């Protein structure tokens, strides 16, 4: 049956490859952070400030057992080697119990934020990440593409002004916008609150009071990402449009006397394809968090959660977050693969003919 549906066959084939990638990624993301020598419990002990050997040893054993990082003997005690060091559970065994747990929907418990479950950490941070980035990326994408298309179509002064500006905006390190905004708009002139997600005197709820406050706090973080997205998209769209405007089909269409508006519509539709791909990828990558923006504005979000976890070797949180990133990035890529195949006739033909 698949023989008669080359497209379906193609999709299934791609899906298979993505699934393999997913499995490998999950394995690597599990193994990688655990390969080093670091013992996350050491940092915890330091934070607890214990100076008593017995107390520290008890506590360390309890944690090592809790996180299944060491072998536990039949007597319920941590197995130690001759030097007195706890014997580490093999990575394969750890991976096995991790898989068993995750299949039941349990992502484990955080080490650094003990006893908070990883799922809770993610569900607290994700909404912030999404509401910081989703609007930014979508609005930035729309406006950037409009500007890029306009520049390509109009050329002239508009293009000569916009284009270098867009290049410049993409050349400034993203965090510099944030830092400068915090300094000038937040501290020096006090136009906007310098840090935070909303008015500290309020509690999140659906009220005009809160919404107004939150919107006010949103302006600077939004702008600091927005500008960069607009710049990048405008450059890409401009190139694509100029490219399409120079193609043979446009020339041919012009010779045929097809109306300019209609030609423009065709060109822009074709130019949009790669841009659409960019959008999907940006949305997939969004889950990784806007780390720097979060730090600069003290905005809660996933980026910060991941960084803290990586730095503190908080294994279960790293694995949980990377799982989320893996799923979203691969899903976005897969969608792009399939969409491009369906929408772009040239590639559609190539797919059908290649096998």
């Amino acid at each position, binding site marked *: 049956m698949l023989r008669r549906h080359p497209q379906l066959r193609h999709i299934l084939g791609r899906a298979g490859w993505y699934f393999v990638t997913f499995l490998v990624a999950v394995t690597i993301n599990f193994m990688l952070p655990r390969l*080093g*020598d*670091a*013992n996350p419990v*050491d940092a*915890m*002990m*330091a934070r607890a*400030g214990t*100076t*008593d*050997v*017995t*107390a*520290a*040893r*008890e*506590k*360390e054993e309890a944690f090592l*057992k809790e996180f299944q990082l060491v072998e536990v003997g039949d007597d319920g005690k941590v197995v130690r080697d001759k030097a007195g*060091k706890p014997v580490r559970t093999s990575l394969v065994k750890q991976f096995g119990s991790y898989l068993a747990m995750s299949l039941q929907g349990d992502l484990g418990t955080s080490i*650094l*934020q*003990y*006893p*908070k479950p990883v799922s809770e*950490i993610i*569900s*607290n*941070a994700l*909404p*912030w990440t999404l509401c910081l980035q*989703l*609007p930014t990326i979508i609005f930035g994408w729309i406006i950037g593409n409009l500007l890029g298309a306009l520049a390509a179509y109009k050329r002239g002064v508009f293009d000569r002004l916009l284009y270098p500006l867009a290049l410049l905006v993409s050349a400034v390190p993203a965090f510099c916008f944030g830092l400068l905004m915090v300094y000038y708009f937040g*501290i020096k002139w*006090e*136009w*906007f*609150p*310098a*840090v*935070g*997600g909303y008015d*500290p005197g*309020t*509690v*999140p*709820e659906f009220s005009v*009071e*809160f*919404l107004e406050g*939150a*919107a*006010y706090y*949103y302006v600077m973080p939004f702008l600091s990402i927005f500008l960069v997205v607009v710049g990048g998209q405008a450059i890409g769209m401009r190139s694509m449009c100029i490219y399409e405007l120079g193609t043979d089909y446009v020339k041919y269409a012009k010779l045929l006397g097809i109306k300019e508006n209609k030609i423009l519509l065709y060109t822009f539709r074709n130019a949009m394809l790669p841009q659409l791909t960019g959008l999907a990828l940006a949305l997939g990558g969004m889950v990784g968090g806007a780390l720097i923006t979060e*730090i600069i504005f*003290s905005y*809660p979000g996933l980026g910060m959660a991941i960084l803290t976890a990586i*730095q*503190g070797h908080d294994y279960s949180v790293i694995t949980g977050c990377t799982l989320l990133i893996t799923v979203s990035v691969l899903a976005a890529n897969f969608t792009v693969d399939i969409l491009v195949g369906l929408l772009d006739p040239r590639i559609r033909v190539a797919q059908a003919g290649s096998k």
Partner: protein
Amino acid sequence: MVRRPLASALIALACVAVPLLGCRKHKNTGPASTGSSQSGSSSSPTAFARNETLYVGGRQWGEPSNFNPLAGWQDWPVNSMNLIYETLVMYNPVEGKLVPLLAESWDVKGDSVSFTINKAAKWNDGKPVTGEDVKYTFDLGKQFASLLMSPLWTGKYITDVKLTDPQTVTFTLDATKKNALPVLDAAVEIRIVPKHVIEPMMTAAGNNIDEFLKNKMDKELVGSGPYKLLTYSSEKIVTQRDDNYWGNAVFFGGKLAAPKFVTHPIFKSNDHFSVGLQQGNVDTSASFLPRIQEKKNVKAWYDKAPYFVSATIPMLWPNVLQAPLDDVHLRRAMAFSINYTDIRELAVSGYSDPLESGMILPFDKLENKYFSAEDAKQFGASRYDVEAAKAELKTGGYTSVFKDGELVEMKDKSGKKVPTITIKSPTGWTDWESIVKIVVKSMRAAGIDAREKFVDASLFWGDLYTADFDVIMFTPTAPPSPSTPWRRFDVVLSGAEWAPKGEKRYKNLGRFNNPKGPGYIARIDELLNEIPRIKDEAELVKAYRELNLIFMKNQPTLPLVYRADQFYEFTEQAWKGFPTAANPFLPPQMPGDRLGTRILWHLTPAGGK
């Protein structure tokens, strides 16, 4: 009631659509009214008026996750004493005196310490705080060796906690040690927990402490302190005043603490607390902020350098188990070679008095009687003196090879190359990085082959506790307590804590003075054991002087600079009445932190904004 991340997400999404017109000057000004109550049993305010809310900072960095008073560490406000859970007594480091809290009186004898609990003390569920609660709290440490109070038992300082009458708890001291200092420290550091709440939970956890510690205790929180946990999220933690707090009548003539809410916003980095203080959105903070003199509206304990009251000594710990750091001449040469002025002025913004040799804080009014300027001058090596450093190197038989003014290598007396000494410090800890860089530069100039080695923070701690280093940077923190300065010496010098490399130890990190090794200085451990028992002031001065002298002569660690136990900063834009050196009615501790909690009753809204 506590958190609604999803709602906040939707709201912020919706906000994008809200047109943003105009730019008004923004301060966080909550509406004047609070307490639009929500449905059900608990009423929760949705806005906190600025003139009823005190914003504190520097005590909470990550997302809050744990409020269990028995856990190794907790989130604010449980981690800062006496806002929710209270201790038996408090300690005033300025006056060196104990201050009553749950215990109205205490009696320190040669073989026991007893505390009499105030009859008026109440848990905020209305039940009285009794001797039973205190005994239960400390007995937990006997049962579970991982708890904060367990060192009293595992360190063999006490043999028993008993009730001499329902309100009086007596700690029997170990007959050989007879050291009351750890008990007094515990009395100011251990939060007393309600037996009637904890015991049933413990039973439910099968009397397994690890199971019990899985309780976050954010809801079942019953304390005896003046505030209650109201709500928390990844952005802030809010506590609300308990108007029925028992201490209002006992200590404040029935007056309530001034702020109705004490809130800790959660920021990602230090500079945000700094911005908050300058803009008046944070009232007081314990975070490090550089160059305080440049910050508008921000004040500290002193109005000029060193601004803060130092209580700890960041130091370098040479690993004395290995050559060449086992050589006292080299260690003293290192001490002489360091440019302490650069460290003070550049790395810590001048927040320190000039360094003196030894481990007694010469500027501290309570401690300076133990300090001998004469000894320091004659035997101390903690001063920048390159010639003296070179002389020590020569005595030790070391030669330094320079080429074009740069040190190439160092040779020992047998003519062999001394391997480069590395100084470990965690990467990304910028103030320590600066210090270590200055140290390395100074040492190399004097002819000591040292290099910086910045390691990942998670590896740092393992290396620190197992003596896996040549030289390591670390500040032994000991907040001012009844046992100061004994504890400072104990942490650095205790021979009882000696262990070979590889074994984990949390004191004597450089493994100095092996009791079974050659050159063991028995006098150190004798003095450490004797000092807590000495009652006579003159004898105490003599003993500390002797101990400090041994430290100077042997230089087991290299003190670098002094540092505040807590950077006490405040701004009076929203609240007035903070204590300062000029008006020291309370010590420099943040409101909601140990004795500093009492500042809350002295504050008044500043009016204006």
